[in-house]
Structures are given as structure tokens and as C-alpha cells.
């Protein structure tokens, strides 16, 4: 289905109550999530709204948790412990009315020698953005008359 470049506005996902378990600055990962989400939505046929007046579609949400896990545990217990976790939730508003909820949680437990936490979290953020894009498209398809 073509969305005919319908304008959307992506409100930055709130990090006010995010549960962070990481020794490094996680803003880079959250920015990557936003960038990927924007580009994925544009790929799907929506157009980023840049004007001042209200967009038809608004996507907003929260970053629930960013967990770097434990590399040492990932090395020894690959599938069992030390996973990195990136979780987001949100909602889609169509003409100001909530049209559907969004939720994605991505975990990684495999990497070379346990895997670099930052690298794995970046992969999680990209995967979560793609997942959220799919959910947004589903919500929009359902909300179309």
C-alpha cells in the first residue's frame, strides 16, 4: 500500500524515566534509533513533516530501558545471561486520535568474545526501529478507511 508521502512527525522518544544500566553515554544509541526510525518510515512511503502546522500522523513514545548487559557473562553463558537490552514503547496518533500502540524489545547475546556492548546495543536500536516501523505501518493500514 502506498502512503502517498503522507506527512508524519516523529517526536523524540522520551528518556525521562528510562532505566539505564550502562557505563557509557547512551544518547548515541538513542539518536541512532531515531535516525533509523525516520529513514525507515520514509522508505515505507511516509514523508517527514517539517512545517509548523500539525502533521496528520504523530509518532511518540518512551525509551523504556537500555541495558549493556555483561560481556563476561555473554562469553560464558551466550544464550543464558548478560544480554544487551533495548526496549521502547510508544503510540501513533492519527489526526490527534490514538490509533495504536507500539512496543519493541530487542536483546543480543552473541558476539565475538561476548561482543562489544555498545556495538550490540546499536544493532538492537536499529532492529527496534525497524520493528517499530512495521508496527506503525500496520497501525496506519488499520486506521485507513
Amino acid at each position, binding site marked *: 500500500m502506498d502512503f502517498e508521502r503522507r506527512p508524519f512527525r516523529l517526536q523524540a522518544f522520551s528518556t525521562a*524515566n528510562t*532505566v539505564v544500566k550502562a557505563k557509557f553515554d547512551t544518547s548515541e544509541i538513542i539518536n541512532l534509533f531515531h535516525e533509523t526510525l525516520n529513514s525507515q518510515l520514509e522508505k515505507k512511503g511516509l514523508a517527514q513533516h517539517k512545517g509548523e502546522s500539525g502533521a496528520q500522523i504523530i509518532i511518540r513514545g518512551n525509551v*523504556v530501558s537500555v541495558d549493556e548487559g555483561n560481556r563476561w557473562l555473554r562469553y560464558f*553463558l551466550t544464550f543464558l*545471561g548478560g544480554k544487551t537490552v533495548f526496549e521502547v514503547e510508544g503510540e501513533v496518533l492519527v489526526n490527534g486520535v490514538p490509533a495504536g500502540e507500539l512496543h519493541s524489545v530487542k536483546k543480543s547475546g552473541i558476539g565475538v568474545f561476548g561482543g562489544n556492548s555498545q556495538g550490540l546495543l546499536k544493532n538492537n536500536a536499529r532492529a527496534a526501529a525497524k520493528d517499530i516501523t512495521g508496527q506503525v505501518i500496520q497501525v496506519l493500514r488499520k486506521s485507513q478507511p
Partner: protein
Amino acid sequence: MSFESQKGNAPPLTHRQLLAYIEKKLNEGIDSQSVILDITAKGFDPAKAQNVVKEVLNSQRKKYWKIFGISGGFGLFGLIVTLATLESESGYIWYGAILCGLIGVIYSLTKLVKLR
């Protein structure tokens, strides 16, 4: 995205944020009663807080018992194979399985002891 009641100027915690917060606190070794008091002080209903903390505590216990079972089984398998083949010419010590199993058992037991 249901929002939970909360005092103060901070935006309200959503249910998932609340679960993540409780999970973090319990894994830090803070006992469940202190976590209940902590979230009750933030304005949550005490009865609801108790239920949510209990729910998270049970899910965490289940998770660590699973790690204990799988890694314990893995370690035990390594030990049995080692003992069974030690006398034969092709026999060798399965360090990998024994070590990973042992680490898993120690890790899960440490976490289980901390969850109160």
C-alpha cells in the same frame, strides 16, 4: 502505553518502565520490601506496588532457576563425559562444559540469593 500514577513533576512511569525499574532495583540486591516502599513513596498504590513487585520477583526467580538448571545440566554433562571417558585412550577433560556450567551455576545462585 498505560500511565501509572506518580507524585511530583516527573512524567508518570508507564507500566513497562515501572517493571524495568523494579527489575533493576531487585537485581541490585535491594530487598522487595524496600522496593515496595520506594515505589509507594513515588505515589503508587501500596497494594498494586506489592503485586507488581511480587510479579517481577517471581519472573526473575524463574529466569535464574532456568539458568541454574541449564548450566548445571551442561556442567554435569561435561563432568559425566569426562569421568566416563577418562580411562579410555580418546578421553579428555571437558573443560569448556564444566567451566561454563560452573560459572552459570555460581552466577544464578548468587542472583537467587540476592533476590529477596
